C-alpha cells in the first residue's frame, strides 16, 4: 500500500545518489515539482531515464544531478534545443553527461519489457540506423524475420504526476498518459504526485487507474506538473517553454533563475 507523505520526505526516502530514475509524462503530466525537489536535495550521479528529456531534465542536468541520460528525443518541444543538455554533452558543463539513446519505439518497448517482467522486448525498428549500440538483432524463431531486441528498463525509482488519488493511495490519470503505466510497473520504487486527494475516484472515460499496492508514496502537489499541465486542472504554459530558451542559453542566467525559482522555494 502506498503511503501518503510530503514531497520532501518522498524524495529523501526514495531517490539515492547513483540511482536510475525515470520521470515520465509525455508533454502532459510531467512531474516538475518532484524534479525540483531532487535538485533541492542535491542528488548526484543519477542515471536519468525519460523518452523526452524536456525542460525538466534540462534543469536537473544543468543543476549537476545527472551522470548519464537514457532517452530518445532531447529537445524543447516546438521551441528548439535544450541548452543545458547540449552544454553538458558538448562541453561537459557542469559535469560530463554520458548518453544512451534510442528511438521512441525502442524506449516504449523497453518499459513494456520491464513492466512485463521480461528481459527484452522485440520490435521492427533500428534496422539500418546508427542507433544500434544498445540493442541487438534477433531472428523470429517462427518466420525467420530479422527484428530488433531492446533490453528491459528497470528503474530504481519511477516518478509520475497524476490528476488525483483517493485516501488509500490509488491514483487516476487521464488525457495523454504516455508511457507512465509501463514506467510505474517497471520500477522498484514509485512516487506519484497528484493534483488532489479525494474521497472517491469517480469514473472518467479513458482513465488509467493504478492501485495503491504497486506504488510506494503518493504526495499531494497541486500544480506539480507546471509548466507542463494536468488535463482538467491546468493548461500547458507554452510561454514558459518559449521563455526557457533564453534563460537556459546562458550558464549564469540559468544559475540565477534556478536559485530564485527552485532552490529558494519550499517543497
Amino acid at each position: 500500500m502506498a503511503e501518503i507523505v510530503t514531497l520532501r520526505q518522498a524524495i529523501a526516502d526514495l531517490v539515492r545518489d547513483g540511482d536510475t530514475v525515470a520521470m515520465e509524462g509525455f508533454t502532459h503530466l510531467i512531474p516538475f515539482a518532484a524534479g525540483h525537489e531532487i535538485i533541492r536535495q542535491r542528488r548526484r550521479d543519477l542515471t536519468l531515464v525519460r523518452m523526452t528529456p524536456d525542460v525538466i531534465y534540462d534543469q536537473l542536468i544543468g543543476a549537476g544531478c545527472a551522470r548519464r541520460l537514457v532517452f530518445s528525443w532531447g529537445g524543447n518541444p516546438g521551441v528548439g534545443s535544450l541548452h543545458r543538455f547540449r552544454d553538458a554533452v558538448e562541453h561537459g558543463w557542469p559535469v560530463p553527461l554520458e548518453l544512451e539513446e534510442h528511438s521512441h519505439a525502442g524506449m516504449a518497448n523497453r518499459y513494456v519489457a520491464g513492466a512485463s517482467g521480461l528481459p527484452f522486448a522485440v520490435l521492427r525498428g533500428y534496422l539500418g540506423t546508427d542507433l544500434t549500440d544498445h540493442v541487438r538483432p534477433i531472428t523470429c524463431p517462427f518466420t525467420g524475420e530479422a527484428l530488433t531486441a531492446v533490453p528491459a528498463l528497470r528503474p530504481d525509482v519511477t516518478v509520475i504526476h497524476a490528476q488525483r488519488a483517493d485516501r488509500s493511495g490509488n491514483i487516476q490519470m487521464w488525457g495523454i498518459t504516455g508511457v507512465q503505466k509501463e514506467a510505474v510497473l517497471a520500477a522498484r520504487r514509485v512516487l506519484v504526485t497528484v493534483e488532489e486527494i479525494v474521497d472517491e475516484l469517480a469514473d472518467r472515460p479513458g482513465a488509467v487507474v493504478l492501485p495503491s499496492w504497486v506504488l510506494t508514496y503518493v504526495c499531494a502537489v497541486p500544480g506539480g506538473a507546471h509548466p507542463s499541465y494536468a488535463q482538467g486542472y491546468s493548461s500547458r504554459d507554452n510561454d514558459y517553454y518559449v521563455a526557457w530558451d533564453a534563460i537556459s542559453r546562458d550558464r549564469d542566467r540559468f544559475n540565477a533563475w534556478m536559485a530564485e525559482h527552485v532552490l529558494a522555494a519550499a517543497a
Partner: protein
Amino acid sequence: MSETSTAAASAGATGGPMWTADEMMTIAAARALRDGAVCFVGIGLPSTAANLARRTHAPRLVLVYESGTLGAKPDHLPLSIGDGILADTADAVISVPEVFNYWLQPGRVDVGFLGAAQLDRYANINTTVIGGDYRNPEVRLPGAGGAPEIAASSREVIVVVRQSRRTFVERVQFRTSVGYGSGPGDRERLGLRGKGPTTVITDLGVLEPDPRTCELTLTALHPGATVEQARAATGWQLAVAPQLRRTPAPTDEELATLRRLESTKGRTAS
C-alpha cells in the same frame, strides 16, 4: 537566411503576390497530403502543413501525433505534440507503446511526415549530431524521437526541410532514420516495409527518388526558384528531371488560411 528568402524575393520583384519561401514550402507540403490519408505528424512544419491541408483540400485527413492522439482536430496550432487541444479533439487517446506497436508498426499509417537536420542523396536523415564525432559533437541535436520507425513503417514518407549545402550533404554523418540506405534494394534487404521517402519538399522545390537509382532528383521548382539555386544549395551533383515541373503559386485562400493558422500557434486553451 539568405538562401531561404531568395525565392520569395524574386517572386516579389516581378510584382506578383508576396509570400515567403517557408510559406511556399508549407503550402507545397500541405498539397502533397491526399484527403482521407492517415498522417503521422511531427511537430513544427509538418504539423502546420497537415493542419493547413485539413482546412483546405483534405478535410478528412487523419492526424496521428506520437503523444497518442489519434484523429486530432485542433482548432489552433499546437506548440507541442502533446498540447491539451490534441487530446480534447482526438477520436481516441492511446498510450505511447500502443501508438508505435499497434498503429505505426503494422502499417496503418499512410504518410509519415518528417523534418531533417541533414539529408543525403539517398534521403537518409540525420537528427542526432553534426560536426566532431558522436561523443564530442559540435552540435548535439535532439535525436531520433519517433522518426526511425516512422521512416521504416509508414507506407510512404514526406520530408520537409529547407535546402542548403549544410543540410543537403553527400552522406549523413549519423544515420538516424533510413531513406534508401546505400541505394537500390537496401530497404528490402533491411526488411523495411514502407516505401520510404517519396517526396522531399524544400523552400526551393521538390525532390523525388529516381525510380532506378533511388537518388534524390529535382522534379519541381517553386515560383521564382532556379535550377542553379537548387544546385548551389545541394552538397552533391544534383540530378534534374527532364520534365521539370513548376509548383503553382500559393492561392489567396491557402496563404490566408496558413497565416491565420500560424497566428494561433501554441495558444493556450482557456
